[in-house]
């Protein structure tokens, strides 16, 4: 039980995928203008990350490893992720047309979110078991969601703040992200 907790804390805070490992920065900057959209994005990414971590583990353990085809890892994981994203898109479109409109192009772009492929590959490198893989994926997604929601709340306030002309928009966003990243470095000694 304790090790599972450690995996969660480790992925959410200490090795946060966005702010410490710098994976998945495109949705982090792209969809963080509005809080509602980023909550939706966080939900969709959580779903995709967890599901793709599980399916990537299954593909690796039961297909690639027994056949000695581990060199096909990257391409098969990309296949897995693309399929899971497509599936998520169908589910979101059916269950919440409004969210589908809000997310727009960013929903299919989860395919190219490097955090998703990163989680799948890191799972293999750390030789995680089934439950560890699922938890690792979920923890990464939870970390992504927390950072995403915090950052978009800040950006909503930044939009009305008195920012110097040349820093308006993306520059102040990048500076804020940098400071947040510094703050997350403070969790380093936690585990």
């Amino acid at each position, binding site marked *: 039980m304790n090790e599972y907790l450690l995996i969660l804390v480790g992925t959410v805070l200490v090795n946060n995928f966005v702010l410490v490992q710098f994976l998945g920065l495109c949705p982090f900057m792209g969809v963080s203008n509005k809080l509602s959209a980023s909550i939706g994005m966080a939900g969709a990414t959580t779903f995709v990350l967890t599901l793709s971590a599980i399916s990537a583990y299954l593909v690796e353990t039961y297909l690639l490893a027994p056949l000695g*085809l581990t060199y096909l890892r990257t391409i098969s994981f990309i296949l897995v992720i693309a399929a899971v994203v497509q599936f998520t898109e169908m589910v979101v479109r*059916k269950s919440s047309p409004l969210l589908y409109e809000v997310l727009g192009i960013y929903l299919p772009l989860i395919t190219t979110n490097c955090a998703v492929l990163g989680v799948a590959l890191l799972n293999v490198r750390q030789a995680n078991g089934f439950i560890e893989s699922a938890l690792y994926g979920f923890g990464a997604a939870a970390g992504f969601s927390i950072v995403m929601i915090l950052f978009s709340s800040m950006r909503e306030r930044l939009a009305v703040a008195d920012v110097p002309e040349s820093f308006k928009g993306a520059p102040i966003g990048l500076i804020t992200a940098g400071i947040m990243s510094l703050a997350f470095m403070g969790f380093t000694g936690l585990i």
Partner: protein
Amino acid sequence: MIAAIIALTALATVFGLVLGFAAVRFKVEGDPLVDQIDKILPQTQCGQCNYPGCRPYAEAIAGGDADINQCPPGGEDGVIKLAELLGREPKPLNPDNGVAKPLPTVAFIREDECIGCTLCIQACPVDAILGARQQMHTVIAEECTGCDLCVPPCPVDCIDMLPVADEVSTWRWPAPEQGQAA
């Protein structure tokens, strides 16, 4: 080599099957034709077509219950566009539904005659009339669709339908006269 090809193909086939199943299972109901028809309709929500609004009329057209010539605010242009979309012959407007206005109009309340009865507010389909009981009412001109629905309920006949004045932002080049192009 062969094993690799077979493995990847099998993987892709499995995902293809799963996605195909999901596409059927999570199929989105929704008629894109209704949206296209609704886009052509003028959105006055006037009800002259005998349907409660533009969207129900669009659904009726798509379902084959209504003809395309029941929308006077859309005018002949609207009928022609609908005919093009649906691949039918354009036909003149049905006189039972009213006549097309030559110019777009906007409602105007003569405010010193208004008695504050709120009847026109209840009639307005787009909430463009502002006022309260015993208070003078007025029309938000940008919201008014010129549907005439507020005129009959008014007990003191203080609502005029004025043609929209040409301004820099509303003026359009007049359409070429019929017959000249041919």
